[in-house]
């Protein structure tokens, strides 16, 4: 199990790197799905099977399919790959990489202060649901409104 976490973590990191380096957008999308699935595995290991399932279904599934639709609509071919390559000179990487590294280093410095072992107890669907429809019931309602807003906005914006 532990090993699984680290492997999945490694896969997630590698495939994420691949996403941001890819020039072919469809490939990148596949890598992203891979990354998300790997994260889902991590969720599972961390004792959140419900979250893992949702990650796989909603994120890797539904959302990425949306992406795929759009990419297909945009009809990007070889031309776009060349264009991507031309946009990705080494220069554009320097500043963002340094910045992200510094941020990461800062995060690492403080996170490594932790000395706590996760017990990896499973918190299952029951518990989540009980909470969700207990104290957090308003959150569910609000999430629906959030989706409504997204829906209306997306509808209005995307229509021809």
């Amino acid at each position, binding site marked *: 199990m532990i090993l699984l976490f680290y492997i999945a973590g490694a896969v997630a990191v590698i495939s994420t790197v691949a996403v941001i380096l890819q020039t072919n957008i469809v490939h990148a999308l596949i890598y992203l799905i891979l990354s998300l699935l790997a994260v889902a595995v991590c969720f599972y290991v961390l004792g959140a099977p419900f979250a893992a399932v949702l990650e796989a279904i909603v994120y890797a599934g539904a959302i990425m399919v949306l992406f795929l639709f759009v990419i297909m609509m945009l009809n990007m071919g070889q031309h776009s790959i060349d264009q991507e390559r031309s946009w990705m000179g080494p220069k554009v990487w320097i500043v963002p990489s340094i910045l992200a590294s510094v*941020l990461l280093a*800062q995060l690492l410095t403080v996170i490594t202060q932790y000395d706590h072992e996760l017990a990896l107890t499973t918190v299952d669907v029951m518990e989540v649901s009980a909470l969700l429809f207990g104290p957090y019931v308003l959150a569910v309602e609000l999430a629906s409104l959030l989706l409504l807003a997204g829906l209306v906005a997306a509808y209005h914006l995307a229509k021809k």
Partner: protein
Amino acid sequence: MQDLIWLLPTYPLLGFLSLVLTSGNLPKKVVGAIGAGSIGLSFLTAAVIAYQFLGSGETHLVVEMWTWMAVGNFTPGFSFYLDGLAVVMMLIITGVGFLIHLYSAGFMLDDPSYSRFFAYMNLFVASMLVLVLADNLLLLYLGWEGVGLCSYLLIGFWYEKPENGYAARKAFITTRVGDTSMAIGLFLLFAELGTLNIQEMLHAAETQWAVGSGLAVAASLLLLGGAVGKSAQLPLQTWLPDAMAGPTPISALIHAATMVTAGVYLVARTHVLFELAPNVQLLLAWIGLITLLMAGFTAMTQHDIKRILAYSTISQIGYMFLGLGVGAWSASVFHLMTHAFFKALLFLAAGTVIHSLHHEHSIFKMGGKRKQLPIAFASFMIGSLALAAFPFTSGYFSKDEILIAALEMEGPGMILWLGGVLGAFLTGIYSFRLVFVVFFGESKGHHEEKEVAGLSMATPLIILMVFALFGGWIQIPVDAVFSHGEVHEEHHISNLMHAIMIVVPLLGIGVSYLFFMSKTFSVEKLMANPLATRLHGFWFSGWGMDALYSFLFVRPFVFLAQVNKNDLIDAVYALLVEITRVAHVMIARTQTGQLRWYALSIGGGVVLLITLGVVL
């Protein structure tokens, strides 16, 4: 009598107001009547007052009118103080003033600004009367500044010529320097003695200050500053020659008879202070001496008839200062009076000459006028004799007294006396140089023109001639004023000295005769000597004082003002604005519209804040 004093300045003031309010819409006859008549009324009043006052045997008289301003213990009033000195001054002012007004009524008849002229003149007389009658220094200062203003206005009377305006401003500003010194003196006196009432102040000074104390020196020096400014003494004498730009009656009234002697009056009025500061008093004498000599030398070289007279005025006031400096208070006042007579006479006569010659000023373009201008000639002869202290003319008596007093003085008295005598010698030369050149010799052009325009111009000349000749016999009632300051012993002057004093002016006249009348000596030959030429140039320019002041004060001031015309401070603020603008331009460049740059700013911002947060 008390009821009358306020009328003195009121008549001319009313004259001024009526002329101003009608703003030149009255016929000239009426204007002249108002202008001269108001002074005439004043003179009559003054005569009545003087008669009553002198008859009453009082030493002084105070007439309070209203409290001017009362702030804490500072309570100067609008009050008049009459004593012998004031009586003399008031009579001179109204008397000579009236004659000059009378003369002006004819002299100025052709001028389009006739009414304006009399308005200013009346205002001047009013101010001058306030000056001499004031019982406190603040009121005196009011008159003091008032006469300065009128002097300015009248010097610049013909304002279309810029140089007249320049002369007027020069006169005002130069005297203002002195006035400011005087104002500071007033502050000091009030701060130290708590009053500006002259008598109280003098009394307090006597009781509180030791002889030679620093405060007395400071106070008297500051007042002296005012006096030298007004009286055109060193180092503020440069304005007076230029002041001749005004109409000639002005020169007679303001720049010869009355205003310029205000400094003498001031010192005489506050003589107690000067007695408390012997060093300053001595300085006074030296100033007088040096001024009289410098002006004398300069007068010899001038060829503008009025400038010659102007320098001679400076020189004569130098005598008065010399007299004040040696403690001959009443002699100085006496000389003031006689000088008023003969110098007014000279100026008025000069005015006649100039008038008849179409405003020609240069004496070398005149000549042989004694036939054409008999009254003027007579006036000039008498005036010049008095000026040169020809025996038994009025000038002789007064100058004599001053020189004797100088001689009697301990210490530098002899030098002062010698200087004074030398001055008298110079006076003889320059005064008769004028007479000889203008009235004798060959006539040069300008034949036409009648001499004197009617009675109104002739009468004053004749009256003044009488006074210039016989004014020396008048006894001025100032003994009570200077009673405690003056040495009242019989003169112990040897006959030799007397003889010298009589002879020296005659020598001067003689030298003048040899040069300009008989042509025994030639000026041209003398001028061949380069040293003489240079000296002549130096004297002619008034010892280079104008150039010096221009270099020291005027040009730096104008230069600094021009350099900073746009106000340096404004530039500082403009710089701030510019900095802001540049900051705007620079920071506005960050708004590139590029999404990735904005994202970078967010990422960078977070990293920056975290770094700051952790480090700090």
